[in-house]
């Protein structure tokens, strides 16, 4: 059984979706929870069309029923978890199904039906994507899905667990490699003196900082105030992909010194003082790590054009010109002799072992087969699984008389992010422009026909795009993507962030829409 919440898998992870569809064909059950009637719902046993940003209320309501009707996995909870009594008390007191129903817009009967189905089949694999994380309550949304899976005992088993589908090819890897302000590669904390010493020794330096650094939103905010003077952006088109483009561009423009590595001129490189031309995918050897923590090879088939250089070389050259000489001589050298040596969870992964299929970390030794799923036998990395109370909070900006629609954003099948790549691979032939997806009911109310030009505006900006009138979208919602500069949803999105993760609330802000005269 699958429980998919906040994941538009057939468009954002199409190949993963094929396996779900295969399983459903063979009789597996599928529960889909999403504000939109997206394609996966065609295959769903049960579909709960929740209101944007109501996930925690809905999930807590489900758990209320599971606890109250004694349908949860008592043995798993007793043996492998802690914090349950307090959690139970909180849920029973604060999230009766009626309340969950009022907030989520899903009927009590439907919530109960889903709870009963969840309790009847094991294991259940839970998938989520950015529909869970891109909220001001993103961290609490994640906590809630983890609570649900612990309550059901769906942890530490094959085809179970909490499975975030990573949006980008190597977002898992970039995290694993320590491109995060608080950890070295392999999630080794910068604040741990022993870890600091280990990296000082390995890198032949002293004085590594033990103070966690800034996250992206704070970096941008620190540009106009000059707390950050120089920003180095590697391969990100932040001027299109961050919320509230007008504000982001103001921040980028304020940078005293901006350096970019990229393969194309982008809306972001316009603000740079120096741009380094970089090798692209297939022009360098390396590895990507997918959503399953599988480290797979990426191979070079041609040289970068003109004078473009591999990114690792560019960083090494800057280091050299600042007085540090590194040995690094290419992908294999960096992985085999540095990354896997310094990262215990990947110590067993070497290029020679991933010629064919990749290996899934943790893979601590050279004879370790890799780890397809975590927390085996309910043994969590922290010891016991911790039930954490998470309360529902509404999105920062909700629809009102002036802005009566909720704008939610995401990706479409035929493009990828800001289209720097897909826009140069002929995919415009299938999807040539952005649209504002609106419900049949709202279109009728507003006198908008499919394909009409509409104006969509928020407190931050305004775009004009064609309307796509569709039954996927519920009344009261406008849905858009951020693939095109013109009509990019990020002219409208709200730069408010989850307090723990600093992830922006791309999934909810208030807008208005009208037919363009």
């Amino acid at each position, binding site marked *: 059984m699958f429980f998919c919440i906040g994941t538009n898998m057939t468009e954002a*992870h199409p*190949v993963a979706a*094929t396996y779900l569809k295969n399983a459903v064909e063979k009789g597996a059950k599928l529960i889909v929870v999403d504000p939109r009637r997206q394609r996966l719902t065609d295959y769903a046993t049960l579909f709960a069309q929740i209101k944007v940003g109501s996930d925690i209320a809905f999930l807590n309501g489900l758990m209320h029923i599971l606890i109250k009707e004694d349908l949860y996995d008592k043995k798993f909870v007793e043996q492998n978890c802690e914090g349950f009594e307090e959690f139970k008390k909180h849920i029973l007191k604060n999230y009766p199904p009626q309340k969950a129903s009022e907030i989520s817009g899903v009927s009590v009967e439907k919530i109960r039906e889903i709870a009963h189905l969840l309790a009847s089949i094991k294991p259940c694999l839970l998938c989520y994507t950015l529909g869970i994380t891109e909220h001001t309550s993103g961290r609490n949304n994640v906590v809630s899905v983890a609570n649900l899976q612990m309550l059901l005992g769906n942890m530490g088993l094959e085809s179970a667990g909490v499975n975030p589908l990573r*949006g*980008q090819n*190597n*977002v*898992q890897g*970039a*995290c694993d*490699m320590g491109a995060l302000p*608080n950890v070295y590669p392999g999630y080794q904390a910068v604040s741990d003196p022993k870890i600091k010493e280990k990296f000082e020794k390995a890198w032949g330096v002293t*004085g*590594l*900082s033990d103070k966690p650094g800034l996250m*992206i939103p704070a*970096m941008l905010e620190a540009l106009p105030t000059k*707390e*950050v003077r120089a*920003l180095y952006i*590697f391969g*990100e088109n*932040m001027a299109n992909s961050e919320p509230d483009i007008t504000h982001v561009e103001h921040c980028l423009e304020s940078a005293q010194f901006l350096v970019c*590595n990229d393969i*194309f*001129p982008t809306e972001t490189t316009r603000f740079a*003082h*120096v*741009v380094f031309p970089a090798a692209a*995918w*297939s022009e*360098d050897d390396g590895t*990507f*790590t997918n*959503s399953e923590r599988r*480290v*797979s090879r*990426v*191979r070079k*088939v*041609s040289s970068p054009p003109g*004078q*473009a250089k591999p*990114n690792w070389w560019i960083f090494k050259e*800057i*280091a050299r*010109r*600042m007085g540090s000489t*590194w040995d*690094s001589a290419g*992908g294999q050298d*960096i992985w085999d002799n*540095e990354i896997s040596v310094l990262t215990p969870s990947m110590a067993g992964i070497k290029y020679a072992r991933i010629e064919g*299929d990749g290996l899934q970390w943790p893979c601590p030794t050279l004879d370790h087969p890799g780890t397809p799923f975590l927390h085996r036998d309910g043994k969590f990395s922290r010891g016991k699984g911790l039930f954490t109370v998470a309360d529902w909070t509404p999105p920062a900006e909700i629809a009102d008389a002036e802005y009566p629609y909720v704008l939610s954003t995401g990706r479409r*099948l*035929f493009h*990828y992010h800001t289209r720097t790549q897909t826009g140069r691979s*002929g*995919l415009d032939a299938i999807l040539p422009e952005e649209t504002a997806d609106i419900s049949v009911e709202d279109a009728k109310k507003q006198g908008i026909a499919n394909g009409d030009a509409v104006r969509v505006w928020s407190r931050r900006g305004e775009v004009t795009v064609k309307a796509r009138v569709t039954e996927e979208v519920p009344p009261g919602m406008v849905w858009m993507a951020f693939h095109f500069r013109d009509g990019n949803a990020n002219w409208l999105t709200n730069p408010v962030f989850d307090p723990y993760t600093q*992830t922006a609330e791309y999934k909810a802000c208030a807008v208005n829409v009208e037919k363009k005269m």
Partner: protein
Amino acid sequence: MKVTINGKRFEIPPGKTILQAAQANGIYIPTLCYHEKIGPLAKCRACAVEIKGNPNLVTACNTPVTDGMEIVTDSDRAVAAQRFVIDLALSSGNHDCIICEKSGACELQDAAYFLKFEDKDFKKGDYPPNIDDSSAFIRVDHNRCILCGRCVEACNHIVVNGVIQIIDRGFTSHIGFDNNIPMGESSCVQCGECTQVCPVGALTSKKSIGKGRAWEVEKVRTTCPYCGVGCQLELHVKNGMIVKVTGVEDGSPNKGRLCVKGRYGYDFIYSEDRLTVPLIKEKGTFREASWDEALDLVAKKFKDIIKKHGPDAIAGVSCARSTNEDSYQMQKLFRSVLKTNNIDHCART
């Protein structure tokens, strides 16, 4: 299990079909509709073989091997049946290998070659061109279609998109999309799974046409640069250029499956827009610079800023699209050289 194939003795593990047993031992049996990931459809009958003691020919693709079985794949009777099927396929349609994209990787061509077709018993019909060119990335040549049914199975039961079906019966039967509308107007999502399983040149990737023959390309395995699934791709490379992408059939996690971006979104690397020279901005416009000049400028600026404002006045955003090794190097630069932990990437946005 002990069996003989064409008089030779083989030890075959249980649970195998005759076709699998033969293939595992290097014995060719013609097939058209059989594909390993689809399993036996037993539709085309090209794999007809003889079993001693069995009055009827059997299809190798779906007949399990039993202990002591004596299989003959090359008897006159078996070969005549195989030839009959291939002959019919060759005569119904335009199988013009000289110009066909699939030449060299075509299973009909292989079968005809193996069966030494020098002449055909059936006269080829007159087939006016019947090409559906409406899809952005997939070309359908109905005259090359042998109605094996692989694409139908793949579209409906592997990628479960439910677009392709066989329309009509008899002479007019053909593959169709949705309710028999042009592929480009149908609900097809252009994942290209059908092109990957098509044994002939009926369903081909438009981008690859004329770019390289099957025998000219080197196949290089790599990982898709798009979403977090990490599909394994086979790059078909000719003279250092990617001319086609297919999924690695036995590779994890995708088992040959791809989406429209993974299969067709590769040629951005050849765009004229690529950055090829370091650029330095002067008075608001970019000018070309040497690597030495640009790198020295960045190193100097960083040093100056650190001296005046401390290491935390520099911040970096790494790339969730590039390799692990690149992200490792960037965080190493920030931590060990600039001495700041101001390094992040777009995982949170």
